Each structure stands twice: as structure tokens, then as C-alpha cells.
């Protein structure tokens, strides 16, 4: 695994505990360094458009966006909608990572072309397993679309 070139993961998560647990899970595949954490929807869009605090970040899209739905300022579904409407961003794989089983959210996400919809398990090991699997698949196994920049 160490030989593999890491691709960037954008984690959009406002809950610091969830963020830490997610990072903990990703650490098992040594993916922690690849993660860029933003704490609300507005910052996620700033990152993607390279503006505001992220104006100076290197060019290129993340290999995957792990997107919470309930977010301050701009919620996850709106972020997803903007990504899918933008010519340069629309091919980025987006995985919704949410606490909710709400069918409404699930349907809305798939209608907006989400690549995967994952309900965060409450039980720690299940959670770790789920996030590990996501990290493994999207950051390592999956071949991202052109325009994705690797890290390292």
C-alpha cells in the first residue's frame, strides 16, 4: 500500500468528532495525509473553486468528496447540486456520508447523481469498516476522472 500514490480526499464534515473518527478510520490505510477537511458547505465550494482561503491551493480536483448532508451555511445537497452543474467539477466522485436514513435525502442525492450513499453506522467497528472500505475503494482502487491530482 505504501507504494501507491495517494489521491486527495475532500472530507466535508462539520462535526469534529465524526471528522476525527473518519480520519481514524482512514488512517488504517494510511490515507490520513490525503484528506482535506472542510467544516461547511461554503468552504467546500471555496476549496473546489480555489477561492477565499483556498485561492492558493494547487490545481486539480480531489479523487473523491466525502460529503455530509447536514452542514452549516450551505447544506450537502446544495453543494452536490453545484458540483454537478459545473463543467469542471461534475465528474468528481461524490459519496454522501450521513447520519440519516431519510428516504427523501437518499432519493434527492441519487437524483443529483451521487456516486454512493452511506449511512454512518453508530457502532464504532461498523463505522470504521465502512469508512475504511470507502477510502480503499475511492482513493486507491478506483481510477478517478481526468483532471484529478494525486498527492505525494
Amino acid at each position, binding site marked *: 500500500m505504501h507504494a501507491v500514490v495517494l489521491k486527495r480526499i475532500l472530507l466535508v464534515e462539520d462535526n469534529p*468528532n465524526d471528522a476525527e473518527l473518519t480520519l481514524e478510520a482512514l488512517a488504517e490505510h494510511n490515507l490520513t495525509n490525503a484528506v482535506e477537511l472542510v467544516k461547511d458547505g461554503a468552504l467546500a465550494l471555496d476549496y473546489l473553486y480555489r477561492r477565499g482561503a483556498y485561492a492558493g491551493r494547487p490545481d486539480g480536483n480531489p479523487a473523491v468528496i466525502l460529503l455530509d448532508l*447536514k452542514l452549516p451555511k450551505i447544506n450537502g445537497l446544495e453543494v452536490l447540486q453545484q458540483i454537478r452543474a459545473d463543467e469542471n467539477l461534475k465528474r468528481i466522485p461524490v459519496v454522501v456520508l450521513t*447520519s*440519516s436514513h*431519510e428516504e427523501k435525502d437518499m432519493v434527492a442525492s441519487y437524483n443529483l447523481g451521487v456516486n454512493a450513499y452511506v449511512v454512518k453506522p*453508530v457502532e464504532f467497528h461498523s463505522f470504521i469498516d465502512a469508512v475504511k472500505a470507502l477510502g480503499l475503494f475511492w482513493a486507491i482502487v478506483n481510477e478517478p476522472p481526468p483532471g484529478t491530482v494525486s498527492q505525494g
Partner: protein
Amino acid sequence: MTPVSDALRVLSLEDDLRDAELLQVCLEEAGFACELLRVETEEAFSRALDQRNFDVILADYSLPSYDGISALALTREKAPDVPFILVSGTIGEERAIELMKGGATDYVLKNSLSRLVPAIRRALDEAGERRRRRQAEQALCESEAKFRDFFNFLPIPLFEVDTEGRFLLVNRAFVDTIGAEAGDAVTSMSAFEIFAPEEIDRARENFRVRLSGGATSSNEFLVRTRGGALRTFIITTSAIVREDRPVGLRGIAVDITDRKRAEEEVFLLNLGLEQRVAERTLALEGANRELESFSYSVSHDLRAPLRSIDGFAQLFLDEFGSGLDHIAKDYLHRIRGASRQMNTLIEDLLQLSRTSRQALRRERVDLSALARQILGELHCGHPERSVDVVIQDDVVASADPHLAAVVLRNLLENAWKFTGRTDGARIEFGAVETPAGREFFVRDNGAGFDPACAGKLFGPFQRLHTTEQFPGTGIGLATVQRIVRRHGGAIRAEARPGEGAVFTFTLPEEK
């Protein structure tokens, strides 16, 4: 009544026996069968009039103790219709005139008795005619009285007006309800005075049309009633026609104020009801929206802290576990256990609330297949358990497939759970036809429950076993009952401790 066929009943006031006999002979010769009673005193004459009916009275003018003038007066008083013929010796012309004025029918001189029979015949004819006329008059009188009574007894105002609209006749109800100002006779009023001022023109026009048209019609009018209050009447009139000419109107006025008010009240009530329903619906929709956003928040926000509790407890164990004694580790495990239990609770509560909010989409659902699938999954999760599963084939119902699955999953998971400590565990699913319709059942031979508590079973958070015995949140059966009821069905549970339980429910076809 016909004197020729029946015996002619004659009362003879005559002191001379031979004269009386002569009268009888005279009558019999003329062909009258004759019953003649002769009296010669006032007392006997009066008694005879009281006791019997006579066809004719033949009275002498002068008697030793009585006289014809007095007898005539008494006859007119006691038997006014009986012809009274004076039969006498010579009387003067003045006397005769006096007698005729006093009501005598005729007089016959004893020396010209040949006049007697024609006089009687004429008197009888006249009497018959008088009697018939009087009977007709009486019948008319009775008829008039009868209709006058009806007219006055009717509690509805009735009236007649002439072509100028003046009242000719009104009944008692009219006087009592519409009436006139105190002191005025109704009949001195114009009919148009009874209307509310704004109604008078319309009433006049209506009156004119009615007089010229003739047909009956009903119209609603505002009328000033006796107390001064305005009330609504339906006035129905028709023209009175004499020799092809209208001479007035006859009508009936029905007070419909109360009826109208009741109708208005019903209308307003209905309006109010509709408004209240609309308001309630709005409030309910608001409450539903609130509930929806509430459960949305619950679904997101209540679970996130649990994940932190469970996650960090585990991380704590992972990273510092080696330095902890078994008590500290036990506490951390309990923290994790409690957070998982709470998660299950939240899941079940959300399920319960979704059950009520989601729209019902009925279709044919193969419950047998569903039961087989659920029990298959349970078996996969607990491969070590050996459960005898009996599922009746082809049990179908008209139900929401998602909700039907929730029902079967809850009932079968319960059966699975409560047979966990039973040797030779057995779970059955099937349907039976009953007079009340098809009943579905899930039966097990597990722990059962105390039948005295069966009523509590379906209340949320009601548990009949401790969590140590059998884990659970106590929400599953509440959810099941709610789903069954939303389908118009019912559910009941029967059991005995240690002898298993059977849950029976119905899912009636939609009407």
C-alpha cells in the same frame, strides 16, 4: 212523513164530541186514515203537544175553559211547524185577521166543512215545504259552522281580500299572528299594510298579477306581525272568480321565519364546520411538517453524538486498554452497549413515526415469500440456532409492501427472539378464513407472556420482559399495530407464559 199512506195524526181541541166525530168522518171520507185525539182543556192540549207529534191541529175557537187564540199561541211556542187550522162557528172578519196574524194556518167554518180537507191538504203541503227548507237551512248552517270552525281552528293565517286589497275575511290565526294595531279591526285594513315598507311595491305587483292571471302562486314576503316584529311568510293566493270575473283573492300565509333561521343556522354551521375543518387541516399539516422536521433532526443529530460516544469509548479501549483494569474496561463496554441500545431506540422510534407519516400504497403482497425471506435472513444471522419454520404457501394480502414487511419483520423477529431459549423452537406463519374475514397469524412456542398483560403489549415502550431476558425497545409492536390499523385492520395477541404466543391480524381489502 207522507200523510196519505200513514195515519194522519190530528189533535182536535173541541168540547163537542159530535163535532169531533164529524171532523173524523169528514177526513176519512176524503181518504185520510185518521188518528184523532180530542182534548178540551188547556192542560190536556199542552200535555198532548209535549208528548206527541201531530200532523195538524184543528181547534175550536171558543171552549168552556179555553180558547183558540191561547191554543194558537201555545202551539206556535211548542210546535211551531204544525199547521194550526181553526174550525169554528161564525167568527168575525177582525177575529179571523187577528188569528192569521197570530200564525194560524187557515180557518174553516163549521157550517162549510167541505173546505176542511183542501185546507188540510194545503197546510200539509206547506208544512212539508217549510220542513224541507228548514232542514236544508239547518244542514247549511251546520256545514257553515263546520267550515268556520276549521277556518278558525287552523293555526295558519287565512284571508280573503277584495279587488282593492281590503280584507273581507280573516281567521283567528290571522288576527292572532298578523292582526292589526290594537283597536283596529283587521277588516278595516288594506292588505298592503301588513307588509314591510320595502315589500309593498312587490306585494302590489304580485296582487295585480294574481287578480288578472288567476293561477295559484306562492311568494315569500316580509310581514309586520302583531307585536311589530318583521317575520318571513310564504303567502299563497288564488283568485276568487264569480261569473268569470275575479272578485278578490283568497290566501294562506305560512310563517317560515323559524324554518329559514334554522336553515341559515345549518348553512352557517356547515360554513363554520368547513372553515374549522380547513383550519384543523392547516394546523395538522403544520404539525405534520413540524413532526417531519423533528424526526429529520432526530435522525441526523441524535445519532451523531452516539457515534462519538461509541467511537471514542472504543478508541480509548484500543489505545489505553492495556493500562486499564477489568472494571475500567467493563465501564467502557457498558458505555458502548448503552449507546448502541440508544441507537436502536432511535431507529425504532423513527420507524414508528415514519409508519404514520408515509402514504399508504396498496398492492398485492406475497406475505409467504416475505416471511420466508425474513426468516431466511434471521437464520443467516444465527446459523447456530435450529428453528422449525412452517410457512403456509401463497398467502397474499392487499397492503403497502414496505409496511407489510415491517409488520412481518417485527412479528417474526419477536418469534425468533422469544424462542431463543426454547428447545424444539417452532415458528409458524399462515392465514385462516373466518366469518369476519381473512386472519393472518404468526405463532411460536417460545416464552409467551402473561395474558393479563396482553392489552399493554401494543403500547409504545411497553415491555413484558427485562432487557437481560430478551433485548428490545418496546416499540416494535406499537409500530405493527399502527400499520395494521392504517390498513383498516386489527391485531390481537394470545399467549400463556412458557407456552408461546400467537399474533393474529387482519388487512382488510380496500373498499
